[in-house]
């Protein structure tokens, strides 16, 4: 042990530089370093791919060109942005009180499943069924996080693992519905649930994007307003900063945690309904969520729980996602995208920490400080 530690110490002290902690971290710099971390991570991946003989930079540029050069590409990004934005908004809301909701994929799936249930069993005017589908999806998303939320709020059970485990349960339930109880018996090739006969109205001038795109924008606006101008938003931020202090200030911390977590689930669940109500996506199978929950998590981490940042980050990740689909046609597998996500997330985490430090040159005062440290260490070593 000791040799390893002293080796690490030696490497650091051998350089003429040292890290200095900033007294204050301003949000703008933190956002910039996070973005820098993400971009740096992508460059690292690009160089690695270059070493394996694939010019990822060129392919990626071509993919982006293919996206933004024509309407179909832009709409493709917008279509993928809707579910990613919804899960990201849910995660960002929970991050405001330092709660990690990693189960947004499951809440998203359960929302969509509830919407399918309503959509295939109800007759009536389309607008009414769609509203009921949205209500059912919202409730189902909230219900799916209820147990982790209660456990976190009242029993202090860490929410990371509990929310994540329910993703697997949701996926099994969706598989069951697609192959079992709601299976479309006419469709022979791809096994999925029956199709919901209703879709949301399209945006004028668009081929496939519906008014669903407006929902995450509206939710972001509402959340931004809540955290800027209301007592509840302020209290949630205080809980995020220091739950003990919030308790002393008379805030009902446990109830706030429960309610906020239910809302995060509800937003993700509604996202499932929005995804389902797009033309051509009206049935569910096990592949219904193309890891939208994870993408949303990365967006929220990148945005640092700032709601307008979520919109920007969501569009960025959705473009990446769509570019990834284009990349697959050029011989890169879907698995690469996950590996890239992992590297990007690491870059964001390192960028977040980088904002807190600055690199300063070691000066004479530090050297004497280090010498004093060593003297203390030597005395300790000699002691009983």
């Amino acid at each position, binding site marked *: 042990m000791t040799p390893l530690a002293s080796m*690490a*110490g030696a490497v650091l002290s051998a350089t003429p530089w040292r890290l200095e902690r900033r007294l204050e971290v301003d949000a703008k710099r933190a956002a910039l370093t996070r973005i820098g971390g993400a971009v740096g991570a992508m460059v690292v991946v690009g160089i690695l791919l270059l070493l394996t003989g694939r010019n990822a930079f060129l392919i990626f540029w071509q993919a982006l060109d293919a996206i933004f050069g024509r309407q179909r590409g832009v709409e493709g990004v917008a279509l993928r942005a809707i579910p990613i934005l919804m899960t990201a908004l849910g995660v960002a809301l929970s991050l405001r009180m330092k709660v990690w909701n990693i189960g947004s994929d499951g809440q998203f799936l359960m929302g969509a499943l509830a919407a399918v249930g309503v959509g295939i069993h109800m007759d009536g005017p389309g607008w009414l069924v769609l509203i009921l589908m949205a209500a059912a999806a919202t409730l189902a998303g909230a219900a799916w996080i209820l147990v982790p939320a209660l456990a976190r709020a009242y029993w202090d059970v860490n929410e990371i693992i509990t929310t994540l485990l*329910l993703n697997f349960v949701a996926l*099994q339930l969706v598989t069951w519905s697609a192959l079992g109880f709601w299976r479309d018996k006419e469709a022979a090739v791809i096994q999925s649930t029956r199709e919901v006969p209703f879709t949301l109205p399209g945006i004028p001038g668009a081929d496939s994007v519906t008014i669903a795109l407006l929902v995450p924008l509206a939710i972001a606006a509402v959340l931004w307003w809540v955290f800027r101008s209301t007592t509840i938003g302020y209290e949630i931020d205080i809980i995020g900063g220091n739950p003990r202090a919030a308790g002393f200030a008379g805030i009902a911390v446990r109830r706030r945690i429960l309610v906020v977590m239910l809302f995060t689930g509800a937003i993700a669940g509604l996202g499932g309904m929005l995804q389902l109500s797009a033309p051509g996506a009206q049935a569910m199978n096990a592949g219904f969520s193309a890891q939208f929950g994870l993408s949303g998590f990365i967006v929220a981490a990148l945005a640092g729980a700032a709601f307008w940042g979520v919109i920007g980050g969501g569009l960025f990740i959705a473009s990446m996602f769509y570019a990834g689909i284009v990349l697959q046609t050029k011989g890169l597998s879907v*698995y690469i*995208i*996950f590996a890239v996500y*992992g590297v990007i997330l690491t870059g964001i*985490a390192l960028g977040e920490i980088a904002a807190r430090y600055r690199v300063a040159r070691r000066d004479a005062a530090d050297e004497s400080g280090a010498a004093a440290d060593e003297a203390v260490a030597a005395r300790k070593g000699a002691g009983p």
Partner: protein
Amino acid sequence: MILAIIENAFLSLIGSAIPASAVVMLAATGAMLGERVGVLNLGQEGLIGIGAVYSVIAVLSWGVESPWLAMLIGMMAAAAAGLIFALCVVAFRASQVLVGLALALGGIGLSNQLGVNRNGTPIQTLFREVNPGGVLDDNDAVSAFFFHDPVVYIAYVGLPVVLWFVLFRTRHGMNMKAVGENPAAADAVGVSVTGWRIFYSVLGAALTGAGGAYMVLSFTPTWSPDIARGRGWVALAVVIFAGWRPGWAVAGALLYGSMISLDTTAQARGWGLPFMGASDLSFFLSMLPYVVTLVAILIPAGAVKLGRRVRSTAAPAALAIPYAREER
């Protein structure tokens, strides 16, 4: 007679649960090792994949003929990934949750990519069951309970005993716990918090990698995408259920494993219920391991809240909190 049938059913259920959750046991021990010194590694799922795929590569592409050597290669690959993780979170103090999730994602993606041309190729280099004097009988529940490959004994008996002894009976273990509970105090008495945290998270990652290696070298035994299938997350849950005590991890792993073997047994025998057909029942049972694991996490916390205090089931106090000497 009925008692014998029940006893037999129980033995064969646990008997098939043991190899089914040996992976969980190894990953849980690995995760526990890191968490005891205050490092939460959420990347277990990715580490299992990396350990598994490098064992597969060792066997299929490098011609390794010993399962032990193949496992060692898998462990080293996982340890390398664990070292990157540890440097990010311990040396650079990045968020353990973010980098851990990144490791989970990246590990799954990397291992799937590396395994893409090796899907379904059967592995011939396998661990063999320990079979003293040829008394093993394939159809006998007692044999199914007792006779497994050596890795299983290491995972369920060797590692927990060693870890228990080190943690609770040695000075070294005291220091480990101090680093996880109160790093400032450990630092003050001359224990290098950074060094211990990096060392034990790398060692833990290697153990989780051994779990992945065990999957492809004995349990499945072939490579398939997303090989961990949630076992890494279950392992993290088992650590919580166990209250960070090595012995209790055995109970947690077997609980998960018996749910898995209940599912596979029901599928193999086409079990059904009066109100549920065989296929519906199997869909239902395939959700059960995760549900039971979730409930298992709630048990210790619930027991504390409802007044039945369980001895020392709390997480290490400094878990997932980066240690910075200058902020002491």
